[in-house]
């Protein structure tokens, strides 16, 4: 089974919550996955990330479908849970998806300061040329549209108030999670279950990213048991890909080495395209006779548009 997911950054194995959830679940259950960390979603078999390539069912794209497939393959982290705990898992996952996930999307993708200074910067540096010019923007628009649909379009006049309300509910959700976790190591005792994977994947980016506008982040940092929960999962299950990834994608982290590798490549492309453009214009000018080199006054050989118009008028 091969998994394609977003590359890591900010101290995490992957920057996208969905990919992170699948990776964490796989680590918990010991599923043998070949992980391809890519920064170009078009390289994944289904065009979006995460994507799981399996022999039996082709390519699966949605996080929940991937985790269900892993469960069917006997990699089940919820095997030891009682029926009641399984019901609680479903309920808390719904709570996360309804209350926390939209606000996370807002914090990373819609909030102007965060998006421009942090998210877009990372994605623009990570994604290869020329996709980095339009993909982050497209993702931004998709997330914005999704939020508008979820929160209702009629609330656009009260946008600020709606935002405050949503952030308040997200803070409440974090507090509830903290109360549910209490002093335990994982949500259901000593061994991790799928709920731990979901909670970790939503909280870890929020905790680790250096956001300029981080009100939700501050609230999370004040909940010590959730911070410890995330750090312990990171150190137990992802000890070596905390930061730079020693795997296939060389453009994974926003380090200077990556930038200088990109630079000559980009610069070369830019210079080439300018030269090709110039050559095309001059060639066309000569071939169509707009400009011709005459052994005469220097003004006639000039390819400037004003001079060309005068020549045409004179010829006519």
């Amino acid at each position, binding site marked *: 089974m091969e998994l394609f997911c977003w590359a890591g950054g900010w101290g995490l194995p992957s920057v996208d919550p969905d990919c992170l959830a699948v990776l964490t679940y796989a680590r918990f259950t010991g599923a043998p996955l070949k992980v391809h960390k890519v920064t170009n979603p078009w390289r994944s078999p289904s065009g979006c990330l995460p994507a799981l390539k399996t022999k039996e069912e082709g390519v699966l794209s949605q996080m929940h479908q991937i985790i269900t497939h892993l469960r069917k393959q006997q990699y089940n982290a919820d095997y030891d849970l009682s029926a009641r705990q399984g019901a609680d898992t*479903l309920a808390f996952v719904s709570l996360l998806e309804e209350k926390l996930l939209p606000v996370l999307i807002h914090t990373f993708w819609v909030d102007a300061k965060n998006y421009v200074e942090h998210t877009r910067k990372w994605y623009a540096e990570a994604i290869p040329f020329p996709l980095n010019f339009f993909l982050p923007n497209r993702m931004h628009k998709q997330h914005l549209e999704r939020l508008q649909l979820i929160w209702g379009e009629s609330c656009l006049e009260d946008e600020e108030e709606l935002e405050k309300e949503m952030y308040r509910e997200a803070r409440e959700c974090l507090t509830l999670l903290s109360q549910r976790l209490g002093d335990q190591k994982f949500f259901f005792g000593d061994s991790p279950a799928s709920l731990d994977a979901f909670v970790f994947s939503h909280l870890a980016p929020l905790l680790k990213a250096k956001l300029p506008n981080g009100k939700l982040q501050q609230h999370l940092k004040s909940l010590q048991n959730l911070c410890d929960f995330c750090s312990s999962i990171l150190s137990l299950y992802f000890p070596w890909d905390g930061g730079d990834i020693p795997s296939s994608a060389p453009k994974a982290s926003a380090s200077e080495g990556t930038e200088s590798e990109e630079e000559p490549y980009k610069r070369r492309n830019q210079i080439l395209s300018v030269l090709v453009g110039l050559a095309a214009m001059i060639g066309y000018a000569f071939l169509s006779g707009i400009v011709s080199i005459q052994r005469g006054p220097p003004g006639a050989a000039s390819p400037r548009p004003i001079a060309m118009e005068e020549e045409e008028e004179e010829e006519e």
Partner: protein
Amino acid sequence: MSLVAEAFVTQIAAAEPWPENAALYQQLKEEQILLSDNASSLAVQAFLQMCNLPVQVVCRANAEYMSPSGKVPFIRVGNQVVSELGPIVQFVKAKGHSLSDGLDEVQKAEMKAYMELVNNMLLTAELYLQWCDDTTVEEITHPRYGSPYPWPLNRILAYQKQWEVRRKMKAIGWAGKSLEQVLEDVDQCCQALSQRLGTQSYFFNKQPTELDALVFGHLFTILTTQLTSDELSEKVKNYSNLVAFCRRIEQHYFEDHDKDSSASAASRSPKSYLPS
């Protein structure tokens, strides 16, 4: 409204007692209202009954447009209008009535989580069935949704709403699901609710909370609404403790109160409720 103004209004709300003429607005019961809206409305009615707060149910064809958030039901108390169960619970709490005060923090967390589960799975499944399943759309939803309006307005409004709901389904990833998968999800949700309820009378202790009202609203509506096929209600009927739960709440809170004739009329005559 800024936070200060909100606090001010909440204080004013708390200062006034619950009036006698509080009204709950929903769409027309016999001809217009759809499964999901009826479920939400019944949940609010159940909640207010549980708090012992009298409310009249008023049916208006344009209830959806009157509502401040675009969703039904909404209540008008004095000169304030509040819509949807969540804000209504908070509003009622500001007035000093609350069903969940006796719960500790962990139980409150669980209650909120289970309410989100119902909203996330049951409500979305109801919306999917109503607006994305072609047979149901043709035979039930379109005729009912636009019934108070003349042609062509009824078709236009119905298509507009359908388009809106389908976009939302796409945004949350439900557009790619088949009907079987949606019914699977409903089954999972009912299983979770059934396991949480167990053999208790209500979800928490011996007293009902807003979670009980919400679950009752949805399950009762699913059980008593006739759709093109019985698959949805069959999924709920598989869990006998849930069916008993609905019956218990119906008997306790709806049949005992004669003045609430509208809710009990809905519970007594389910078959005449929807054309097949």
